[in-house]
């Protein structure tokens, strides 16, 4: 009788763990899988797949397996809404990581609030996202990466050391326009004269008319707000025209993706300095695993998605299960507000009242086909004051 009672108590004690082990946690990744920005989504699929496999190989989180689902936002606000609906209504995910592109992030924010699903942003840098999140009204949105207002204030000071005037060339979307507005203010504060601001639609074939305009305004420096695939064409034509301005960048210019595009002549990118928050050298082990798995250089956005899962979502899932025994959407959101990760490759991850994490900002210099972190700068809300 006593033995039977002991067996019954043991079984009852093991029940929650058994029940947890039986229901996997569903994580959705949203990014641009098709369209001109599809390179980002491909990276997110690769990064998301790798990190989820890594966790599952270790037994999942608190004994629960992770299932990854991917949805295509085509880098547009409208498609981002469809991507969220698909992840929530069809795939029944518990948490979303994405949407990579600022326009898509801004488009997805109202729908994640309506559907009450936590969304952790990995690399959208429009400053509006911070204003609208947490105490800004949307308690379901969190952001790991720092935004362009945070970066612009630091980067403009650094640029002011070698340039008295600058022209800005930015993507004609929420990312580019958000950055342009932030740098407009930051340049004034830093004493850099903004000679001109030009916008372009992605995938342009010919930037030379734009460069002829730069030639006329003759600034000391040019700030590019663009991604690698556009930047490689831009820089080839910049060198073709014989322009000599110092190039600063935001987006994914000083990256292995860019170097892969210009491998016939890597010196095209010599001297470019980019403000960023991630580069491969911050996590050599991840870079090695990526190369082994995908046989292609590590991608920025895929790595940020994986890093967001590993250092923000996974700790929140663990905390939610420990505290409430559940990993439902509300428990995950509450846990995200409480996580305090001090040792991620990009710096500490702890969300403030606007659900913004204040990770490090880095300056990367490209020279001779090599990328070098020349400065690592901690960030804090004080930067904006």
């Amino acid at each position: 009788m006593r033995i039977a009672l002991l067996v019954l108590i043991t079984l009852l004690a093991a029940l929650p763990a058994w029940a947890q082990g039986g229901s996997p946690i569903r994580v959705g990744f949203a990014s641009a899988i098709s369209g001109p920005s599809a390179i980002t989504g491909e990276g997110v699929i690769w990064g998301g797949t790798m990190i989820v496999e890594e966790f599952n190989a270790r037994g999942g989180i608190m004994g629960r397996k992770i299932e990854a689902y991917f949805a295509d936002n085509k880098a547009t606000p409208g498609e981002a809404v469809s991507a969220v609906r698909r992840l929530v209504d069809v795939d029944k995910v518990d948490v979303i990581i994405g949407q990579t592109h600022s326009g898509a992030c801004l488009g997805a924010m109202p729908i994640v609030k309506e559907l009450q699903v936590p969304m952790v942003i990995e690399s959208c840098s429009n400053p509006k996202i911070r204003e609208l999140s947490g105490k800004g009204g949307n308690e379901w949105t969190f952001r790991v990466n720092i935004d362009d207002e945070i970066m612009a204030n630091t980067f403009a000071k650094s640029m002011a050391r070698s340039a008295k005037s600058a022209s800005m060339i930015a993507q004609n979307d929420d990312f580019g326009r958000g950055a342009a507005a932030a740098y407009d203010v930051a340049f004034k504060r830093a004493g850099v004269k903004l000679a001109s601001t030009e916008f372009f639609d992605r995938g342009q074939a010919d930037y030379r008319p734009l460069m002829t305009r730069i030639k006329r305004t003759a600034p000391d420096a040019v700030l590019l707000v663009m991604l690698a695939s556009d930047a490689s064409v831009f820089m080839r034509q910049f060198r073709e025209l014989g322009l000599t301005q110092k190039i600063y960048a935001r987006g994914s210019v000083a990256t292995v993706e860019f170097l892969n595009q210009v491998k016939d002549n890597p010196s095209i990118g010599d001297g470019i300095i980019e403000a960023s928050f991630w580069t491969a050298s911050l996590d050599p082990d991840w870079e090695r695993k990526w190369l082994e798995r995908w046989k292609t250089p590590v991608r920025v956005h895929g790595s940020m998605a994986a890093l967001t899962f590993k250092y923000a979502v996974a700790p929140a899932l663990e905390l939610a299960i420990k505290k409430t025994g559940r990993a439902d959407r509300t428990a995950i959101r509450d846990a995200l507000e409480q996580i305090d990760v001090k040792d991620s490759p990009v710096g500490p991850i702890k969300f403030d009242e606007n659900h913004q994490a204040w990770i490090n900002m880095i300056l990367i210099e490209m020279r001779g086909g090599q990328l070098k972190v020349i400065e690592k700068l901690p960030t804090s809300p004080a930067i904006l004051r």
Partner: protein
Amino acid sequence: MEDLLEQTIHGLTLGSMYAMVATGLALMFGVVRLVNFAHGEFFMLGAYTFWFAFQELDLPYPVAGLVAAAAMAAFGGVYQRTIIRAILERSWHVQLIATLATSIVLTNLAVIVFGTQAKEVPTRLSATVFQAGGLRIAWQRLLVLGASVVIFAALHWFVKRTKIGKAMRAMSQNREACAVVGVDVQRVALVTFALGGLLAGGAAALVTPLFNIFPDMGALLTLKAFAAVIVGGFGYVHGAIAASFIIGVSESLAAGYISYAYKDAIAFVIMIAVLLWRPQGLFGRRIGI
């Protein structure tokens, strides 16, 4: 002044690209009365074929260019024999959906086969610069301009002087009458699509050393070429060529002196203006009822 000259040369380079694509589109419409919305994808496939031949097979530039043009001519022929032949007698709705669907399928196939990362095919000519005073132009741009003159002269000769060219012109005037007098309309249509493919492949080989190759590259190009065909007068090859250069140069001057962000709108502003002023296009003839 150097500024203006530089912008004009950029515009003529762009115009050459639009013209080679628009010419194919105009020929196809003229001969079989069908708008091929997948025509930009002919250019995209030509670009990938050129990349494969030049970078992966390491063929010399002229050979790789000829391979791309020949492959796209063959593709144009196969496209006509399969998809176009099946929809030629159907309503314009079916034709629209079928060619649009082909465009989507080809774009997504390119994503699967070649990946999403843009590819670049720099050549010796695209990396070296012709300099005269303050003017700096990559030799590849000059090659594009020179080659387009030769290509359009050859096309003019082909359409005016050869038997099949004359049949194409005849079919553009009255397809039924051609069939009645024994013209092999299917064969003429086949040659037209092969010629459209040849021009798109040739254009791709000429201009891709200056630009990026990516799966979606054909979408905007189709629309610009379409605008050129409308501005030139639907089905008028010479009109399409002239309109392409007008659009290319206007776009370049607008980008250089007005706004780069809105340069893509220029083609469509010109198209709307021409439609309001001359609905039959700049070089088309008014049809009375």
